[in-house]
């Protein structure tokens, strides 16, 4: 059965890219969010198996959205999407409970690898 994924990124370009990467994989995109508030509300509404969360988003940041999601569901499986130069933020996200991270620009095998690893961690 395909894992259900929610994609959260303020750039439509990035959401489209992730959607394309995941199209023929074990992951099914069930929803998209373009800001932190929407990421939290859609997570609560759709209860996906995984969420990919961009770190820099308008309004509520990815880090704040991560904390809210985990406050709602401590077992939530969150993979952060970061860009070069955001190592400190990535570390903070991992310490806050994110399962893994992927760095932009996305490489398909790295994205799928990170989501697979995060899913396995959740199962363990």
């Amino acid at each position, binding site marked *: 059965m395909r894992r259900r994924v929610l994609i959260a990124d303020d*750039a*439509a*370009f990035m959401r489209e890219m992730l959607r394309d990467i995941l199209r023929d994989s074990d992951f099914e995109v069930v929803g998209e969010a373009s800001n932190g*508030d929407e990421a939290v509300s859609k997570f609560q509404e759709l209860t996906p198996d995984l969420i990919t969360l961009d770190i820099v988003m*308008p*309004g509520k940041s990815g880090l704040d959205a991560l904390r809210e999601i985990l406050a709602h569901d401590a077992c939530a499986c969150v993979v952060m999407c970061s*860009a070069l130069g955001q190592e400190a933020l990535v570390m903070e996200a991992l310490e806050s409970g994110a399962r893994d991270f992927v760095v932009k*620009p996305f490489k398909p095998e790295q994205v799928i690898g990170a989501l697979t690893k995060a899913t396995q961690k959740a199962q363990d």
Partner: protein
Amino acid sequence: MDLEKYRTLFVDEATEHLAEMSNAVTTLEKRPSPDEASAAVDCLFRMAHSIKGMAGSLEYHAPEALAHKLEDWMEPLRDGGEVDAAGIALLYDTVSALENMVRVVSQSGDALDPRPDLIERLSAPPSQRDSAESEPSQRERSGRSAEPRRGSGSDRATDAARPEGPEPAPSPLPPTLRVRAETMDRFLAGVGDLMQRHARVEALVTHVPDFAAQHEIAEELERMEFVARDLQRRALEIRTTPMRHLFERVPRLASELARRLGKRVEVQLGGEEVEVDRAVRGPDRGVPEHLGDAHRPGADLEIQAPLASAHLDRAVVDARPDRSAHFLDADRSRAAADVERELARHPDAHADARPAEEPGQQPPGASVESDAPRVVLHSKVHGRSSRAREVCYRPDLVRVVRPDVE
């Protein structure tokens, strides 16, 4: 990966981001409140970050590197502080450079100029404006520095008023969808076809022999017409966009002009609510990036400027579709009326100032002194709506009228 699809997505999204960045820089230039400044800085940071990510994904290394450098340069400003004039100029230059790069990607895909000059300038941390300079000084009012001000609304020039009290938190943007232009055109054509068939059925129903049935069908047709017209109106709303989106660049042009002339600039915008076809938008956008750019002949869109009194340092952008010669005269008489109206609104202005008939001509008795010499860049659109697809600007008519100063 479908590179063509992503190239289009990149161009579309980067273009929107750069428009937001341009507006944010204009905001910073106006010495905004701390909350406005924070929002503008945050916008610049996020948009640069987004452009960096998209460009990197497509291996457009020049915009990726430049956006990354800009992002790093903005970082210290996220803790507050005002950007000085040099910083504002650097921001405008960087946004312009990124716009050029996006345009090249859109048009030709040629190798991009990495702009090492901007990379170097962005390597120095931003110097911030002295917080003691909270009010414009007399030195600035005499025209040593530029401060664009924007007016909007139905043909009135108004100062940008600062709201009193704390700024309300910005509401989140509503979700949007991207639709191809040809899909929208097919939809509009379908709605038009629907209206025609409705009219045809309406004509045929009169041949129905049963009067009761005829009446019932006519009532349903009336309801159907209401729905169809509503559908048509909504389809047109999707296809068209308010003119204000074309005017996004005008304040920045004014700022550029102000820096070149060393004068204050006042921007007057009118008719922003007029709807035009979205096809007018795009890399060219209908507004020249620099005042020297040339564009294609226009259609139904008219953008004009007043020929204002010669005692004020004045730069005029006179732009109109290429039409017959008499249009120019009509434009000038309308422009003269605009100036008269403006002078009547500002009783402190020099009473003997009158519109010049020809560029450079001094009206009789015009004073060469000006308490606040300024430049007026005026764009005004007439008409209720337009399906204009192209816009023309006449950069050869840009002129600066300077008074003879002893």
